[in-house]
């Protein structure tokens, strides 16, 4: 190949670790967590949509929890309000567990990896 500038050498790629198995397992887990292409068939579309909807609900639920903790820490709620808020969020969490179970989804499934931005939740 003809180049405009003087060629410069490059180091040969090397991979170095004393814990290969641990890294292979972890990299495999990360790769498997990447979303598959959307497969539009009648069997998969229901679960795909459920995953999308439940991911959004889970995201909002976590925001509500954070907001509730902030208000608890701020001390601007009565004991009764705190108890009611806690119970409502507890029931919402239980309902989410039921729905995840029905669609065969795990917590990990609803925690999308957004790459450089990190995980959704």
């Amino acid at each position, binding site marked *: *190949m*003809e180049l405009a500038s003087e060629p410069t050498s490059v180091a040969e790629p*090397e991979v170095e670790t004393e814990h290969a198995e641990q890294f292979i397992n972890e990299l495999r887990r990360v790769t498997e967590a990447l979303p598959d292409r959307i497969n539009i068939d009648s069997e998969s579309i229901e679960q795909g949509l459920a995953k999308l909807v439940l991911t959004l609900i889970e995201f909002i639920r976590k925001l509500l929890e954070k907001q509730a903790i902030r208000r608890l820490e701020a001390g601007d709620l009565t004991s009764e309000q705190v108890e009611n808020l806690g119970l409502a*969020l507890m029931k919402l969490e239980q309902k989410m567990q039921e729905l995840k179970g029905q669609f065969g989804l795990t917590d990990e499934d609803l925690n999308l990896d957004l*790459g450089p931005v*990190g995980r959704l939740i």
Partner: protein
Amino acid sequence: MGLYLYCLSDELKAGATLSVTGIAEIAPRVIELGAIKAVVSDVQTHPVRVTKDNVIAHERVIDCVMAQTTPLPFRFGSVVKPDELQAYIASNEDRLRSLLDRVRGAVEMSVKIIWDREAVVGERAKNRPDDLVKAEGAGPGLSFLLAKQKQMEGRQELKIKAGLLASWLDEGLGRLVRDRVVTINPADAMVVRAAHLVERGRVAEYRERVNWLSRERNDLRFLTSGAWPPYSFSHLRS
């Protein structure tokens, strides 16, 4: 028919041919688009299938260019029409030239760190035994919120520890690193994934330094790899 894109450079000469074959055994060629040159080959099918042969062919072409200069590599499977490539280069030429300046004479090195997350979490629980007592005598609603509060504090502490770990690595490598893209995932075992831009002439020194740092922290697991094409430093938004 479209153009399969391998990489961009401002140091290649238009019309140059590469001594390797690319996707579908077709020899790549260099085309000039202003100051930027693109290494491309013709493809008949789109999308290009992700097969072992195709992925190796993509890397083979980029490695051939890498052996002589540092290009901006395209991700596997990038296919465009000739006029689309021209428009892309024309509208981003300044930023692409700036990216080429950034990676010039350098390669990408990678460090991944695994920590014992359970041990880090356990250490925290040991240091904060009063958290468990707080919920005594509270109703189920308050107990639920207190448990969540504890979880959030734990996550925040993990985030801080992971950030400190990334800073320790960064400070340890100092000026050996020209630029970096670091992802921190406190919730994962693989807590730090760092891509470093390192000058070609300093790769051996960099490797030695990472080895030295890894010996300093026996509680962590390190994986270093490279030299790679600067994939992590080739995004226009970076």
